[in-house]
Every structure is written in C-alpha cells, then in structure tokens.
C-alpha cells in the first residue's frame, strides 16, 4: 500500500512539474494556460493524497474552475498573442535569472535544509482540520478574524477590478457609468422641461 502511494505520488508530482515546465516552455499563451490548468489539477490530486479532501476539492473548484477561466479571459482581452512569434530570450534574461536564483536561495533552500525530513508518528486525528465540518467550526472559532478579513479582501479585489476596468473602458469607448448616465438623463429632462 505504501509503495502504491509512493508510485502515485511520483506520478502526480511528475505531472505537476512537467506541466509547470511546459507552461514556461510553450510559445502559445493559450497552451501555457492549459498546462497551468493541468498543473493546478495535479496539485489538487496531491492534496487528496495528503487526505485533505476539502482542500483538494477547493483547489479544483477555485483554481481549475475559476482562476483559470479568469486567466483565459485575460488572455482573450489582449491583442493577438498566440501567433507564436517572439524572442527566445528577452534582453534582460540575466535579471530574471538573478531574481529566481535569489528567490530560490531565500525561500526554498532554508526550507529544504531546515526541514526535519524524518517522518515521525502521524498527527493525532483530533488536531487535523481536514474535513468540512471541522473547518467550518474552526472558521467560527479560532479563525474568525481571518475569515472576515477574507471577505474584505474579496471586496477589495472586486472593487479594484471595476475601477481599473472602467478607467480603461472610458478611454476605449464612450460608454457612461450609471451615475453619469443618471446625471445626463436628469439634464435632458430639465432641457425638456425648459422647452
């Protein structure tokens, strides 16, 4: 059984890593997005292997089902980017290399070195918050504040998107926001009344 789980783990992580490499390797942006979806999906499977079923489903629901759609829409909002033309290396490739090396050194190396890789006994059943019911109770007790702050964060995200989109829209075509339209309508009514 252990061996089977290890085989599955290796398969899933190969899928995740391979897909992630393909995301940066392919020239076509839509293909990149597809590989990214595959990678997200693999991470969901990995959560399932860790027996965190709620997290696994949430990963599929949010990352595969929602964020990726957003990414696809964002690509389709741009001009034609799928033609496959482009530089193989951008001019400042060395900067990108530097940044990624630094990130690797700062984030991954301490984790890899500092982690105690010997597997101790499994955590007791009570301490694990993996099921939906336990999670819901925890949201209402220990994690109430982060939970409400998440709502504020979502509100900010939505508002920000609208503000940015409307700025762009106002430049692209002359379509009015509701407030402007109401003002215009009022003015027209006044004009009408004057007549």
């Amino acid at each position, binding site marked *: 059984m252990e061996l089977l789980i290890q085989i599955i783990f290796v398969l899933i992580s190969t899928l995740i890593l391979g897909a992630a490499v393909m995301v940066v390797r392919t020239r076509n942006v839509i293909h990149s997005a597809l590989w990214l979806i595959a990678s997200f999906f693999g991470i969901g499977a990995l959560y*399932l292997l860790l*027996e965190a*079923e*709620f997290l696994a489903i*949430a990963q599929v*629901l*949010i990352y595969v*089902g*929602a*964020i990726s*759609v*957003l990414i696809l*829409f*964002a690509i*389709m*909002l*741009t*001009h*034609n980017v*799928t033609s496959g033309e482009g530089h193989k290396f951008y001019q400042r490739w060395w900067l990108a290399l530097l940044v990624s090396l630094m990130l690797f050194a700062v984030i991954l190396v301490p984790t890899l070195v500092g982690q105690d890789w010997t597997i101790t006994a499994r955590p007791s059943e009570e301490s694990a918050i993996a099921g*939906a*019911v*336990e*999670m*819901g*109770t925890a*949201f*209402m007790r220990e994690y*109430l504040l982060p*939970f*409400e702050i*998440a*709502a*504020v964060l*979502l*509100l900010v*995200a*939505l*508002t920000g*998107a*609208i503000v940015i*989109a*409307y700025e*762009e*829209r106002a430049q*692209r075509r002359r*379509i009015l*926001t*509701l*407030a402007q*339209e109401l003002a215009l309508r009022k003015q027209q009514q006044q004009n009408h009344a004057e007549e």
Partner: protein
Amino acid sequence: MLINYPFIAVFFIASVIFPFIPLIMGYLVAPKRPTEGKKSTYECGLEAIGDIWVQFRVQYYLYAIAFVVFDVEVVFLYPWAVSFGQIGVFALIAMSIFLLILVASLIYDWRKGALEWI
C-alpha cells in the same frame, strides 16, 4: 470515507479513456477524402477574412473577476453550512457579517453598472 477515493481514481481513468474510444474508432472507419474546400473554415460560404482574434470586451473579464470572488465566497460558505447547526446564533452573526460585506460588493458592482451587458 477516504476508502472511497480509489473508486473515484479508477472511474477517473475510465472516463478519461472513454471518449477516446469512439474518437479512435471513428478515425479508423471514417472515410477520408479531404479537399481544400472541405478543410477550409466555415464563414457563410465565403472566403474567411481576417483573424479570429478580436479583442474581447472588458465586460467578460469583469464577470470573470466577480465570478472568482463569489466562488471563493461560496467555498467559504460550504464548511460553515455543514457546521452552523452546532454553533447556533453566533455562527449566524459571524456569517451575516461575511455575507453583508459580499453583498456590499455585489451592490457596488450593480450600481457601477458592471453587471450591465451593453
């Protein structure tokens, strides 16, 4: 009931294989006599003109953003939905704050005209 996941895994493999069976069978038995005309893209019987890549309206993106936000909200609500009976009135109050903040964002969307489709 994690014991049930192997079933899902096997079913997943079966459903991934399943659509390719008719595809491959169709590929094997179907006649193939392609001509230029057959293989051209349909456009009302005329020659296809221009690129399909038009810049889509920002509206689609706004809907997608709103969708992500509310989807995350719904995912947050599900654990609460199965446990709120045990916690009672406190859960009700905590969740109503959460919901009110989100309803505020929906109202903002609405008033700003982001939900309009022009």
